[in-house]
């Protein structure tokens, strides 16, 4: 199994499709895993449930995390990932429609690596996702 490079946590199938389209267009999605709720995201990251047996240390290079998710919300996922020694070094990027100050403050308090508001206009959206993918895949150097 190839190394997972991006974990995409997004419950909206249209947003998911648009995001994947943007990443693929720029050849940034060699190994993308997408999940649609917080619980599945945690299962993946901590290798449990249907991801039992996955090597936890073989984490994604970055997680694009929506905030408003079914079952377990994005803030809770962020909290658990950053609270665990095994996963706390994985960069988490909140990609959300919420421009709420409260969410931003809380996310940064929990140690989020980046917080991005999804632009409403399609052009801006595509551009932002492309830049995000490019930055985290090509520019940023992850922790050893």
């Amino acid at each position, binding site marked *: 199994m190839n190394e997972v490079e991006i974990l995409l946590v997004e419950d909206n199938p249209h947003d998911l499709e*648009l995001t994947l389209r943007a990443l693929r267009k720029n050849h940034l999605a060699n190994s993308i895993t997408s999940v649609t709720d917080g619980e599945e995201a945690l299962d993946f990251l901590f290798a449990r449930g249907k991801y039992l047996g996955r090597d936890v240390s073989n984490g994604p290079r970055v997680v694009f995390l929506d905030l408003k998710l079914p079952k377990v919300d994005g803030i809770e996922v962020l909290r658990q990932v950053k609270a665990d020694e095994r996963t706390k070094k994985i960069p988490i990027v909140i990609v959300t*429609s919420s421009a709420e100050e409260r969410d931003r403050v809380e996310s940064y308090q929990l140690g989020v690596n980046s917080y991005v508001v999804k632009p409403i*206009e399609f052009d801006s959206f595509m551009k932002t996702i492309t830049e995000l993918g490019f930055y985290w895949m090509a520019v940023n150097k992850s922790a050893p």
Partner: protein
Amino acid sequence: MVGGKDRRGLSLSQKGLLLVGVPAIFQVLLLASLFAFERAHDRARAAELRRKEVVVSAYRLLALLIDAETGMRGYLITQKPEFLEPYDRAVREIPKELSRLRALTESDRAVGELDQIAARATASLAFQTQNRQLIQSGARATALDRVQRGIGKQIMDAFRTSMDQLLAAEQRAAANEEQHSIQLRSRLNAALGVGTAANIAICVGLILLLTRSFTRRLSAVIENTYRLQQHQALLMPVGGEDEIGDLDRRIHDMAAALEKAENDLTRFFTISLEMLCIAGFDGFFKRLNPVWETVLGYSSQELYSRPFIDFVHPDDREATVAEAKRLAEGSTTVRFENRYRHADGSYRWLLWNAAALPEAKIIYAAATDITQRKQFESTLQDQNAALESANRELESFSYSVSHDLRAPLRAVDGYTRILEEEYGAALDDEARRLLNVIRSESRRMGVLIDDLLAFSRLSRQSLSWAEVDLGEISSEIIAEKRRRYPDRTIEFANGEAPIARADRSAIRQVLFNLIANAVKYSKPQAPIHIELGGRSSGDHNLYWVRDHGIGFDMRYAKKIFGVFQRLHSDGEIEGSGVGLAIVQRIIQRHGGRVWAEGEPGKGAVFFFTLPVTQIEIQEMELINERSGNSAGRG
């Protein structure tokens, strides 16, 4: 001696003086008479001594004369000169003796007798002198004859008679004086006796009278002080003008003042709406006012009969006991709350103020029944909780709005774009125009959502106060607008607007929206005139933003501040219809007012006021006020 009235007229010191003075006067009188008697007695003794000397002197005179006669008789017989020696002595001594006698009797009545004695003594001596001369001259016979005839004896007898008379006179005087002395002594004795008796009687009388005046009245005064302490009725006034009478009157005055104070207190105690009580350190009520019965439903007998802690809610007993202990240690209770049982079994919340008098082991306390207030408070708390929860819901709603409404918009926009990209070649112009309409409308809806969210967020943020220069902010915004619309001429008249005490970013939002409005509603192709003005006006500042745009009909002057209220159709002017609602909300939260004046085709003026001293109006108040207003407007 003294009538009751007179006795009372004297002060205590005067009475004391009387007690000492009256006997003293009697003593002085007694002493004076004793002294007078002494003087009389001395005089009598001196007179007696003198009389004895008179007798001695008289007999010596007699002896001298007899000796002279005897001597002369011997000389006559013997003619021996030595017999003349007694005669010579008599001649020498008699004048001396006479003068002594005269001195002794000088002040006496017996002057006549003395002259006679002197004359007869001198005559006797002269007779002897003649005899001697006769003898010496040789006429001895003549002398003898004279003697034999008894001439000498006659002279001597006369002398003796005179002497007897003198002695008798002296004797009489002595007897007189003796008589006088006896009378004097008896009078003195009588005076002494009567005086002493009177003195004793007066003393006894005075002591009795004054004792009655002092003791009985003093004990009445003492009794009164005791009764005063025991809150009992006093004895009748003892009367009198002395200090005891004064003291008694003062005590009666004091009792009257105390009674008045007590009456005042009782009156207040009775009419008070507060629950007033006096309680002992023994844990029982000592005194309660009638409100207690009203509030707790128990009779005062029931309340007095049990320790007050019995009436306290079991959960409050520990705190109540602790508070009573603190009171006993001298601290004061302020706003202590506990629950007391009502006769019907329910509990009443009481709010207490209390203070203790440790030396008397009592507590004074006042309580108010705050049960209703407590209920209000709890209702209010419930309401607040409901409000908070409503607020939270609202917040969560806006969260959903921001998140959930954007996503479909993006999808609409995105899929339209994908359609264009993937199938653009297959579409004709009309199809592409329709796609553009879809895109622009979805963009507009995005802006709308953003504005709505901004408006909602505005309510939840608290204001941070600072000195705000509206002119400076407006200039910045104008510069921004000039960059945004390079093809339009924007003229800005910056009047001298006073510095405001406000939240800077909120006021920036106000000015931004008003200026944006002015630009938006300007006449096309014409230069845009915008004017900022302001002035102080008492406790607030008035500001205005004026434009020369298309204006509006005054009939809608109030409507324009409503959310999504637009006076112009979408086709005419682009906008969400939230901007002025935001302006109104911000100004209201600052405690100010906003209104607009306009005329179609001539422009509009937006006025707003800001209080000089900062007051922050909470969102809830605005909501309440708004509901009130809308009800008012019907």
